């Protein structure tokens, strides 16, 4: 029951808000906050009670949801972040905006997200999964009249849906493999090639949704949406859902034998390369987006090497940290009108609450011990170490990069502006509702690290139903801690010096800033060939297929004309000839009929003579 309510309440509120449209603009924020509060309570109840629910959908494939340890953790995380984001949005999405549409879509999203994390089978999962994608499209394009926004939404939607093809295939493969009711938990039990295809398909969909390589570029476009959307969908919830799904199907991934390393390497490389992309950004939201890909890369890496406990910790810690950072970025965007890093110089000094909470979040993101992400990342790295030293090394390098981009942002917001800008430009105030959720998230970002401390870590693993996370050797902790601290200090110093000297950003590399030119690559490899093929097919359709039918039609017409002109004429001529001949014969036949008796006798004699002649000759 709590589970059904948890989903139906936001869904029902969403339907009302979306159908009523602008008429409920005034009431929308209150409704959304109320639903978010109740949902957080329901999520906690459901996490403890572990209910399940089922509804008849397709024949032999029900729509089914259930709460296990992993789902419980994700549910509470999402509900908490949702509440924080919705409170923030009450201030951020102002009175003149289409609030009903905004909050309605957000509520629809969160309902779909709850179904995603609790889905029992692929059918239920895919249904919720694609609705999340559609709400993401609608929210990125929330300001649809501004040029480019809707296009950004389209790119995000189409890219993730391309990866979702994998999930459709997975459903068919699971059925062919004989996984009863397409149950996700049973995938590791069936054997054979179909199982591998099913798991690979699910993994593909997960990588697309999580903006892993080579799909990452869509997340850059997703930043066109309002900041609360970036804070919820495009960091803590929907994007993380891909990593979450990989954790959920981890037993199956391990069972295939080959998929684990593939997934782990994609995660590790995304963590590394997108970490580098984040370092090179000039735009705060773009920096955070690239960092999201990189951080979720660690969850993906965890799923690939069987480190479910560490992956779950990272899911929770990253949700708190990244939603906090996006909210602060959004608050500054609203107050200062910019997300350009150079123009945000000194922002922490003019807006101390935002600045301090941002600092806490950025330090956590950079992996500063003992904050949450440091703990999570270490859990993951210690799971990767026995699997492959190379993986571990790449992971460690990615961790160093996350320290670097966090430090870069920190240095920028705390460095005093070169010249004192006019006050009225810089002093946009941040409304209370936007500040309200920040401290809570900052506290969560700080203390969630306790999940990795031994007594709690054991309980955490038990909750998840996985074996205890392997404990790293002490040198591992020491090394990653030293690395993080060193990099943060160095980059802060370097960036600060660069700012004060020449007002420039460090690591300003164009191809990295362009997200590795991924989009251009996809454009050349996929989009343009499809466009060309489409144009070719269209011409073929008009000039060949359609023309062929017309040609057959006109050929019949031409034939009929030929028949008309030639054959008909010939037949008519022949008929005329026969008629003519008959007429002439008749005229000729009439001539002997003279009426004179002696001439008849002459004719009879000639006739007789002919007959006699014939008689004699024929003998």
């Amino acid at each position, binding site marked *: 029951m709590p589970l059904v309510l948890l989903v139906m309440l936001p869904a029902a509120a969403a339907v009302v808000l979306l159908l009523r449209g602008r008429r409920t603009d005034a009431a929308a924020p209150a409704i959304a906050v109320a639903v978010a509060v109740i949902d957080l309570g329901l999520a906690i109840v459901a996490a403890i009670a572990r209910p399940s629910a089922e509804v008849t959908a397709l024949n032999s494939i029900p729509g089914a949801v259930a709460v296990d340890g992993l789902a419980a953790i994700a549910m509470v995380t999402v509900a908490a972040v949702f509440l924080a984001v919705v409170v923030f949005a009450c201030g951020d999405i102002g009175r003149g905006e289409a609030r009903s549409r905004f909050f309605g879509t957000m509520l629809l999203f969160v309902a779909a997200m709850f179904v995603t994390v609790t889905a029992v089978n692929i059918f239920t999962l895919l249904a919720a999964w694609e609705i999340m994608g559609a709400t993401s*499209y609608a929210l990125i394009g929330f300001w649809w009249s501004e040029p480019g926004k809707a296009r950004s939404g389209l790119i995000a939607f189409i890219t993730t849906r391309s990866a979702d093809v994998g999930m459709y295939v997975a459903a068919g493969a699971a059925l062919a493999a004989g996984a009863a009711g397409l149950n996700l938990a049973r995938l590791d039990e069936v054997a054979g090639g179909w199982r591998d295809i099913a798991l690979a398909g699910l993994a593909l969909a997960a990588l697309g949704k999580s903006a892993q390589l080579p799909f990452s570029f869509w997340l850059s476009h997703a930043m066109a949406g309002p900041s609360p959307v970036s804070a919820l969908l495009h960091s803590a919830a929907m994007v993380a859902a891909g990593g979450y799904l990989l954790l959920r199907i981890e037993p199956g991934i391990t069972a295939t034998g080959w998929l684990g390393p593939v997934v782990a390497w994609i995660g590790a490389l995304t963590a590394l390369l997108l970490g580098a992309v984040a370092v090179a950004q000039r735009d705060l939201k773009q920096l955070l987006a690239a960092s999201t890909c990189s951080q979720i890369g660690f969850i993906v890496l965890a799923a690939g090497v069987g480190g479910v406990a560490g992956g779950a910790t990272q899911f929770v810690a990253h949700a708190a940290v990244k939603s906090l950072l996006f909210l602060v970025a959004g608050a500054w965007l609203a107050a200062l009108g910019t997300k350009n890093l150079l123009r945000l110089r000194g922002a922490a000094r003019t807006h101390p609450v935002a600045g301090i909470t941002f600092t806490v979040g950025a330090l956590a993101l950079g992996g500063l011990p003992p904050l949450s992400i440091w703990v999570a990342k270490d859990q993951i790295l210690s799971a990767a170490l026995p699997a492959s030293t190379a993986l571990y090394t790449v992971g460690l390098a990615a961790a160093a990069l996350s320290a670097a981009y966090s430090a870069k942002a920190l240095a920028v917001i705390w460095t005093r502006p070169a010249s004192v800008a006019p006050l009225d430009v810089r002093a946009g105030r941040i409304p209370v509702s936007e500040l309200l959720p920040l401290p809570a998230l900052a506290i969560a970002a700080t203390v969630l690290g306790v999940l990795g401390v031994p007594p709690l870590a054991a309980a955490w693993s038990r909750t998840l139903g996985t074996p205890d996370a392997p404990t790293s050797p002490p040198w591992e902790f020491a090394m990653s801690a030293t690395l993080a601290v060193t990099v943060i200090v160095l980059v802060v110093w370097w960036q600060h010096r660069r700012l004060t000297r020449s007002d420039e950003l460090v690591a300003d590399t164009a191809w990295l800033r362009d997200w590795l030119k991924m989009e251009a690559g996809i454009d050349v490899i996929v989009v343009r060939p499809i466009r060309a093929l489409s144009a070719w097919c269209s011409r073929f359709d008009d000039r060949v297929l359609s023309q062929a039918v017309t040609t057959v*039609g006109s050929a019949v017409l031409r034939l009929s004309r030929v028949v008309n002109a030639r054959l008909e004429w010939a037949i008519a001529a022949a008929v005329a000839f026969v008629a003519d001949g008959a007429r002439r014969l008749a005229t000729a036949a009439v001539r002997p009929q003279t009426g004179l008796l002696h001439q008849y006798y002459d004719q009879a004699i000639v006739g007789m003579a002919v007959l006699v002649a014939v008689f004699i000759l024929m003998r």
Partner: protein
Amino acid sequence: MLSIIVFLPAIVAALLLFVPRKRVRLFPWIWVATSAVDLALIIVAWTGYIVGTGTGFGYEENVRWLPMLGSGYHIAVDGFSLPIVALTGVLFLACAVYSLREQRRTRSWVILFLFLQTVSLGLFVSLDLLVFFVFFDLSIVAMYFIIAGWGHPGAARAALQFFLYTFVGSLALLLGFIGLYLASTPHTFDMVQLVHQDPLKGDPVVAGIILFAISLGLAVKTPTVPFHTWLPPAHTEAPTAGSVILAGILLKMGTYGFVRIAMPILPQAWRDYALVFVIVGVVSVLYGALVALAQTNLKRMIAYTSVNHMGYIILGLGAAGLATGSNVQASALAVSGAVTQMVSHGLLTGALFLLAGVLYARGGTYDIGAYGGLAKTVPVFTGLMAVAVFGSLGLPGFSGFIAEFQIFTGSLGSAPVPTALSVIGIVITAALLLRMFQRIFLGAGQRSHDEAPPAPQASMKDVFSREFFAVAPLLALSVVIGILPAFLLHVIDPAARALVALVGG
């Protein structure tokens, strides 16, 4: 009961012939009332069918008609026909509501549509090949007059092409039917008896030839690539209600013919040539989507997405023929998905064509590039189009997803590569539908190229209530099927299982 449902519209049409012309303003309302009563009767029949056995044939009527030809007036409904019959009732009512303001030769318009409704219903309930064929040809005749009489300027040519093309197709169909008749002993046109006899069991060559003839006729009507070229011009030139019925109902006559005639009567041949249908299906899916992507005319675009959507149906039915014994459950799922797709496509494409008509009524063109930023001036229209677009691209929560998910999931095991390829179709359709939506409704509303003067957008009126009440119920029904599909699938499932048992050997 069933005969009343079928012939009520025609009887009303016949009576309307005697109503004086000056009462013409009543005609649209009489049409609405007739279609509403007919739909109510269909709902009663549906309820009765479920309360009764819920499987096999219901409301069966079998009257001697041409006994020397072994043909009778044999009609009934089952899990395949009932959903399509209900769809027919819904779509004709929607068209009736939409046409409430039709000014041009209203009398003939109403009478033609009532006649066409009887023809459509009759086709879907007939269990006799000759009766089926008569309705099949009459539908072409009625639609010819609708397109030619009320269409846009190029309608005469498009209507003629439509008529000749599908009529030639129907001749192939007739040849196939005659072949079946000659093969059966005793000679009969009765579908139930033919299924029972399985007359061509031991003769794969003749069975193949007859399947080819029947499939050719049905493929033209469906239409599948490469027999689809009559569809885009017919849709582009047809009046709105004509497009709705053409896409929503007449195309289903083709796909319905496969599940009603081709598959059960020629099961062995279907198995032998299943791969052909799978390939035709996947080519229609991808080719239809790709050509649609290149279109700039809204109606042509929707027409090509119809080719794409029909392709999924053929794919699912073909895959059911490829399945081996162990995949019975999957095949039933694919067939059930194919029938769901017929209903879903009728609702959603019907809605899209109605909305295209709404757009044309305001802007006077179907050219997508002539519009921009309409969401500002016509929010309700925009909302309806957004829902229709998302439904059409197969978003969960709509009927299209239920249909396509079943088709893909049920087909993949039997035809892995074609199915995986055709899943790509949903990505392309998503891209093209959303792109169309964005161009017409979103953005600032300023066109960069100024060779074409933009349609009068500032003064554009939002949907009128008759337009709203024609479109909204179709979308609502699609959502109901998308969220609570069980009521529909429980009707389809027994029929799908029975068919799979036949085709599966």
